């Protein structure tokens, strides 16, 4: 049994056209999958972030190198993506903590809070991005 984790096959309706055009994620679903995607991205990017922390604290020359490196446009854009990932993961995480406490679990407020998470994380990204740029 290679697939011991999958107990039994379940009926599925997941043709490609259905996935693309018929099945739409609700906003809370977008917050959720972006929470997962941003978390995975942050896990992978920690190597890069630690590299920059290491260089910047090692010596004045290392610090200047990181400052120069962060001045490059592709590097800035990459860092901006990570800033968004952190902000989204942060805001969505707080929403999940509140849901755990049974705050805002009715449909209307859950939808409102998912919109708030998407907007707040973008606003925070703009704020920190402007200060970093």
């Amino acid at each position: 049994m290679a697939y011991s984790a999958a107990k039994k096959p379940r009926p599925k309706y997941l043709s490609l056209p259905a996935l693309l055009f018929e099945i739409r994620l609700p906003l809370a679903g977008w917050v959720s999958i972006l929470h997962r995607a941003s978390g995975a991205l942050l896990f992978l990017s920690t190597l890069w972030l630690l590299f920059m922390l290491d260089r910047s604290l090692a010596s004045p020359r290392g610090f200047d190198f990181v400052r120069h490196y962060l001045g490059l446009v592709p590097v800035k854009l990459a860092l901006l993506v990570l800033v968004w990932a952190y902000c989204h993961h942060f805001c969505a995480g707080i929403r999940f903590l509140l849901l755990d406490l049974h705050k805002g679990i009715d449909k209307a407020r859950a939808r409102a809070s998912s919109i708030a998470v998407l907007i707040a994380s973008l606003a925070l990204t703009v704020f920190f991005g402007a200060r970093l740029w």
Partner: protein
Amino acid sequence: MKRNVVGAHYGLRDWLAQRITAVVMAVYSGIVVVVLMIGQPIGYAVWRDLFAQGWMRVATLLFAASVAWHMWVGVRDILMDYVKPTGARLSAQVLVLLVIAGYLGWTVQILWR
């Protein structure tokens, strides 16, 4: 009793750990943002002195430990959702654990150089 060795260990512990580490990281994030925003412009001396202080080193270590544990639970959940064959999943989980241990070791080395 038949148990899946790469399962979720049937417990509340990881779920709770994910939330407690999240709170630790949120508090640290807030402190760092405040320190960086109200402090002087960041030059090498300011940057080095910040991480030379005992409280900052300990706070950063607590943050890094929380990140490590939080990452493990989160990435393991992703692997459990998408990687079904037991061998491949176990291999991926071991690799992730080694990477996280490496991250944590490197962080300690950076802080107490």
